[in-house]
């Protein structure tokens, strides 16, 4: 879900996603390539992201991932599920 959200802002390559997640979560989530890249491959097979080869900032050939319409829908569903879970947990914790 975090990957989907990150890609929702703009298409980026693998390391960009890892960097963004680490930055925005202020170091709480540190994703390493061993889990990020397989997750991206799975999402590509599920049809949530699609990829293309572009030149990156330092003029290298890099694989860029972008969100598809399906991915956007998946993101919406997953964030709804997440907020339901969060409100349930907070209700329990406050009770």
């Amino acid at each position, binding site marked *: 879900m975090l990957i989907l959200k990150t890609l929702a802002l703009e298409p980026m*390559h*693998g*390391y*960009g996603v*890892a*960097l963004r997640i680490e930055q925005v979560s202020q170091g709480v989530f540190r994703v*390493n*390539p*061993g*889990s990020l*890249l*397989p*997750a991206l*491959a*799975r999402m*590509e*097979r*599920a*049809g949530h992201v699609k990829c293309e080869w572009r030149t*990156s900032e*330092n003029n*290298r*050939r*890099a*694989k860029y991932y972008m969100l598809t319409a399906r991915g956007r829908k998946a993101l919406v569903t997953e964030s709804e599920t997440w907020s339901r879970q969060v409100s349930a947990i907070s209700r329990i914790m406050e009770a």
Partner: protein
Amino acid sequence: MGLPGNIAQGIRSFFRRQALERDLDDELRDFIDASTAEKVRRGMPVDQAAHAARVEMGSANAVKHHIRSATWESKMEIFLRDLKHCVRGLLRSPGFTLIAVLSLALGIGANTAIFTLIKQVLLQNLPVRNPQQLVTFGKSTDGGILGGIDLGTADMFTYDFARQLETNPGPFQGVAAYTSLAPRVSVRVSNSAAALQIPANPVSGNFFHVLGAAPLLGRTIAPFDAATPHSNAVAVVSYHFWQQSLSSDPAAIGKTISINGKPFTVIGVMPAAFHGITQELNPPEIWVPITMVQEILLQPGFLEPRSYYFLHMVARRSPQSTPGADQAWLNRQIRDYVRAGEGASIAPARQQEIEHIAVRLVSAAHGVSQLRSRYGDSLKILMAIVAVVLLIACANLANFLLARAIARQREVATRLALGSSRARIIRQCLMEALILSLSGGVFGLGLAFAATRTLIAFVAQGTTNTPLDARPDSAMLWFTLAVSVLAGLLFGLAPALQVSRSSAMPTLNAGARTATGSGARTNRWWPKALVTVQIMFCLLLLVGAGLFLRTLRNLEDQDYGFERAHLLIATFAPELAGYKPEQVPSLNQRLIERLSAIPGVRSAALSETPPISSGAWTSSISLSGYTPAPKENMLSVLNRVSGHYFETAGIPIVAGRAIAPSDSANSMKVAVINETIARRFFPKGDAIGHTLKINIDSVEGPWQIVGIARDTRAGDPRENPERMVYVPLAQVIGKHGEGIQDSFASTILLRTAGDPASAIGELRGAVASIDPNLPILQVRTMQDQLETLMSQETLVSRLTAIFAALAVLLAAIGLYGVMSFNVVRRSNEIGIRIALGATGSGVQWMVLRESLALLGAGLALGIPIALAAAGLIRAQLYQMSPFDPVIFIGATAGIAAVTVLSAWFPARRAATFDPMTSLRCE
């Protein structure tokens, strides 16, 4: 992308493997570069940054592996790689693979062949709507025409009763009737001159409607077709007839064919799978309305009320009513009918009798089948036998695969230590087993196809139109697949369990020179148990084969009461050629004269039924000098025979004289009875001289008894001989000496000097020279006829013998393999024993002792089971006890011999072990 896109991507990646690999490398390298750049931007020194980035990622190969295993094609790749590995492993031991696949092919093929037959003979539903609602009144397997009986006897009914129930079916949806025999009729199609003799079946108007059978072309017989007697000459033909005689002409509807000389219009063609309600060899091919029955049976009077009992009945039950209510209603209808025919007052004893009349409703979902009653039990026995053979083959394979698994213990331990999942290794074991069983299944399918054709050809015995089909259908394929998979799982179980129990730590004492060093004790248990089970099954099969072969021999040696060699029998039908009863006596005379003149024929005779057949001409008789007890059965089978019948058939006369040519129309009416009648009614032996009367008006008598003939055995030699009364053919005439309906003779007998088969052509020629239109329905030597009667026993005994031999061979191979493997495994131990002073013969005895122990255990289990099984098949045997000691001892000796022989060679090899070599090599 969804599922199809996923699959497409996966398939595409198969072909672009190298490019994808490069892409993956690029991506990882790029990741590391970007990570390094970021770290440098944050202030780390360059080389430290690079190192940190690489450490963060971990092993590039591991990451690549993770990425690849996120997709489905990696699993497929693993599967395919395992498959290749297994296949290569199997191909590396070609001998083992060949024997395994062959034995499985034989086992699975045999199972499929028998299953196909069972499905067609026992299980197949009629090709009609809702067949499970159909019931017949009684079993309806016997056909014929009876008179003077109570309604419902032998499941036969009269025309007016059938009509009554047709209009008022009571709780049934509909009640229909059909003639119990489908006689051959002479059929001529318009533009061909030759006449064919084809079985035809008159049926009631609602027959097709009640059955729920839809036609392929045109329409079926409807109630209005059967409204008026002797009109509406319409016919519905079978697919086979339409194909053969009408050349599959789509415009065949409306054409006219001539049946027994009368024109009939074809109104419909039935689909290929429809054979009426009966399933038998030579099913009816033409259906006509019941009102045309006289034209088909060539005899009048069937449609008169309470005249002849000749119809079987079938009904379709309604889902709302219960079987009990239906049964009760039917019994009531029958009893009311009988009571109505008795007249005003009925004696109380007779009332009681009538109250007990009942005709059972029998489910007809599978049709009425003589094939089923004939072969049903044999097929079930054969199914059990082929299942046992397959189990023996599976036990062999389980042993073999177990041996391989044990030999590969080191390999398995190494793989486990290197990180392979145990599940994958077990999967590979099962895969190996399934590869073997599925290849066995594929070959078995081909074998089954050939075997099914042979079996059906045997069962059909030369008839061209049988309802049995040898073509493979989906049920056959599914069955083969299921049996292959089950067999594979069955024998793959043992080695898989073995692997699951093995440990990653290589067995510490694998190389140790102790008795337990070569594998745990539990490893020895499986092979022993399997071999014991194999021996038990083999004993069962050998006993079965012995019993059936003995039965067949007993049947073949049976004395049927007449001379069976050099006898030719032909069936002919003058009524189909249009002969009237008045013309028959002269025809018979001419035939006898012409047939006797054939060179090579010692004598010729005519009769109504041949000596082996039980005959349908029956009646009660009354004998002078004998008063029957009340309710005593005075029925006897009758036969009308020409002058030289007894010497032609070779039936000895035990007292008095035979019927001679001098017994002509003008001389005294004489009769010959058989021993059964003489013993029963004239125990003092004074039968000759008494007279007898027959309860059929046309041949009432009185007939003077002039001779007693030896009993002949009818079709089923298991039954007691029937009572027979022989009267001269020439004396079956009307009041003024003219021929009557009963003057027809249908059988020609020829006793030849040489081989009877060589006289067939001459016979046909002789008949044709008298009348070329006289149809000969069948010509056979008596030997062939008897062989067809024993076809069921021949089939079962031959197949059982073949399967028993196969099973013994498989068990011998299995035992040999197990013993060899044990000896090889224990080579260290044996080497030590020999080095310590054991003699060669001592070692040999040690190995043999093991196999004898298995033999003993197998026999201990097998003999009680064989005794129980023999008791079960008592009904199949003939003139012998199922516990025949000779057969049991023979089977035991056979198994023991095979066991000792198979164990001999490995034992011999063990005795010749050189301790130096066996202890040195590891």
